[in-house]
């Protein structure tokens, strides 16, 4: 009898424990909209062109956002989710595809090199006259007497006016 009572008490305790435990697991915080959007922002709608997944209003994209939520809830990393979508729908869904990522890393260097080349071109064009940047005027062309700022400006404005009238 006592043993039966113990068994019933044990079963009740187990059942209560299970009931208590179940809602707790159901109430695990699901990923928030902001977390889902952070991942979705790095993906593009596979149907609509050039629209990030986080702002696309089609039904398909709403379903894909739900899918992201499920994957995040299952503990997937952003990279793994990106890879999953790329495998499913092709690399066009990635905001920054791998090839472009490599290119982006090179980009600052390329731009810097381009600008340097451009500046170099200007300097090469002007190679004979670089001294004039620091030396006011070569002796062969005597400079006009240095005017005061106001007089110089007046001269400029008045010359403009004469030209235009």
């Amino acid at each position: 009898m006592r043993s039966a009572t113990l068994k019933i008490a044990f079963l009740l305790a187990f059942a209560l424990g299970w009931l208590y435990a179940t809602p707790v697991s159901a109430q695990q915080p699901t990923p928030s909209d902001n977390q889902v959007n952070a991942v979705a922002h790095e993906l593009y709608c596979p149907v609509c062109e050039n629209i990030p997944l986080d702002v696309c209003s089609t039904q398909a994209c709403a379903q894909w956002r739900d899918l992201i939520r499920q994957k995040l809830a299952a503990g997937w990393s952003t990279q793994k989710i990106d890879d999953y979508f790329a495998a499913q729908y092709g690399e066009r869904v990635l905001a920054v595809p791998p090839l472009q990522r490599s290119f982006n890393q090179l980009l600052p260097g390329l731009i810097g090199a381009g600008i340097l080349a451009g500046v170099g071109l200007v300097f090469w064009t002007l190679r004979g006259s670089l001294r004039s940047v620091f030396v006011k005027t070569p002796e062969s062309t005597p400079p006009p007497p240095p005017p005061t700022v106001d007089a110089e400006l007046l001269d400029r404005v008045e010359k403009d006016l004469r030209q235009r009238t």
Partner: protein
Amino acid sequence: MIAELGFGILVIAFAVAVYSAAAAIYGGLRNQPAWAESARYGMLLTWPLITLAALSLISLLLTGHYEVEYVYNVTSNSMPTYLKITALWGGQSGSLVFWSWLMSAFASAVTLRKWDRDREFLPWVIAVSSITLAFFLGLIIFSQNPFVRIWVTPSGQQLLSMVQPAGASLAVVADGLGLNPLLRHPGMIFHPPMLYLGFVSFVIPYAFAIAALVTGRTDDRWIRITRRWTLVAWLFLSIGLFLGMRWAYDVLGWGGFWGWDAVEVAALMPWLAGTAFVHSVMIQEKRGMMKRWNMVLIILTYDLVIYGTFLTRSGVLSSVHAFAQSSIGPVFFAFIGITFGISLGLLLYRWPELKSEMQMTSVLSREALFLLNNLLFMALLVVCFWGVNFPLLSELFTGQKVTVGPPFYTSATGPLWAGLLLLMGVAPLSAWGRSTVKTLGKAIWKPFAASLVVLAAVIAAGTREVSALIGFWLVSYVILVTLYEYLRGAWARHRRAGENLLLALWRLIGRNRRRYGGYFIHLGVVLAALGVIGMQFFQTNTQGSIPVGSSLQLDGYTITYRSLAIFDTPDGRNVARAVVDVYKNGAFLAELYPRRDYYYASQQPMTIPGVRSSLGGDIYVDLVDWQPITTEGATFKIYHNPLINWLWIGGLTFVLGALIAAWPDGEKAPAPSEAPAKEAALPGKA
């Protein structure tokens, strides 16, 4: 009947344009003015003809002739009259008619000018304009006919044809699909016409450039004639781009204004080349330099206009394979290739005659800084060209299409835009011909020192993001330099003539509209840059599902959900409209109505945000989702867009500046022989 009339008139217009081109070329080659004059009359005839064709189409749109396929696709009974008219450019074939109408208007206008001093240009300007017009009219007639009708055979099969197929009768259609919901916005009513105006008006300076190359008259006369055309073209293109940004911000519901979408980039590319050209022609006018480069730039601008139209009209952006299937893709491609090849050939033929008349003498001279400005614009163009074409190349060679989006463009173009801003703060203070570190430093140091004070204030206010600090410094520096230039000029007049400062400023601007209008444009650009910096570095957003009465928080703002209503409208929409209140630190600011419209006919949803605007920024609320049964819960996405309104203020300032710069000032153009006698290098002379 109206459809046949409209199509017939288009065919006549096409024939006239072809005749005009042929007569102009013959007259030019044989030096026979009578043929050139005949070509001119032909050109003038195209405008009334295409006007009649466009009016025919508008009449069909207004009267609901849904048996015409184009009318069926872009209008419906419930659409208001003004939208039925603007549906003229709401679809591909109609927009090509509109493009051609604008082209013929501009080409006709240019033929009406006095040609006394430039008669040798006339046949070649007409030839280029007519060939461009004939190309677009040909596209309409042979491939994109907006007058095609829907026919039904006795077996019930539907056919599309201009003429009646044997045994078929016209389809009886009670209502159309209606205009794409995204296009039912004031910004979209004016955005395409402005872009098209910009595109077609760039054809005119290109036509003069080609005329100069053909005739060998390679002085800067062609540039002086087209100066105002170029500015007007550039103004329209700029307005078109700004309106497009506003439309995207108001209608697309993603909280931004520029997504580096391929269509946007296609419109930006001619603007970049055109902006470089607008700056570069000044060097030729003032110093007789960069003649070859100016030719290259205007050829590039023209072909980028056609290329942009090709990208957006051929379907190639959807898939590179759509290009081959598209009836207009290969034709466009061939036209671009031919015009580019011929232009380049002419340029190489005249290469020796386009030698600079003067040498650059200083790396800090204004022409050297303008050259650097051009290099930066070209770098931007290369980035955009690469970005818009890379997905096509990738698909072509690997079969795998990739997306080139904002991450690429922002990292690639950011430093280049910053470089251009810096030049805006230096070039206006440098002199043509010669500048030294000392003279430039003397002109710069005051605004530079003041800008450092502004930078210190921004740091003290808590900004730590280095890129944002650089941006804020550049903006403040350029604003100070520009204001300083205005003030110096006005002060000089005030001292000399005793005018009060406001009058002196007014007269100063009136006397040299080009320079001071240009400064206004610079002001507009930096104000717009302020908006871009705010969005790029400080935009925040949050999303959440909340029941009625609950709130979401963002950056000190509280957005409280009050109610939701779902209803049908007489124009065929199902509207879900929420009411939310916006509070800042507990104080009520505004009531907003974010909504989602669903268009039954086209089965398209559209998100209309609720926006509370101030100079500090916008609170932008999207209704993302809602519970359809209980209407008790809804999902909102909220954006805080700091400084965004400075973008629109900058846009307005920009347009005002361009209007000032382009306004006729009664300036007498110097005779061609005077032009190369370039002006003395006075400090700060523009």
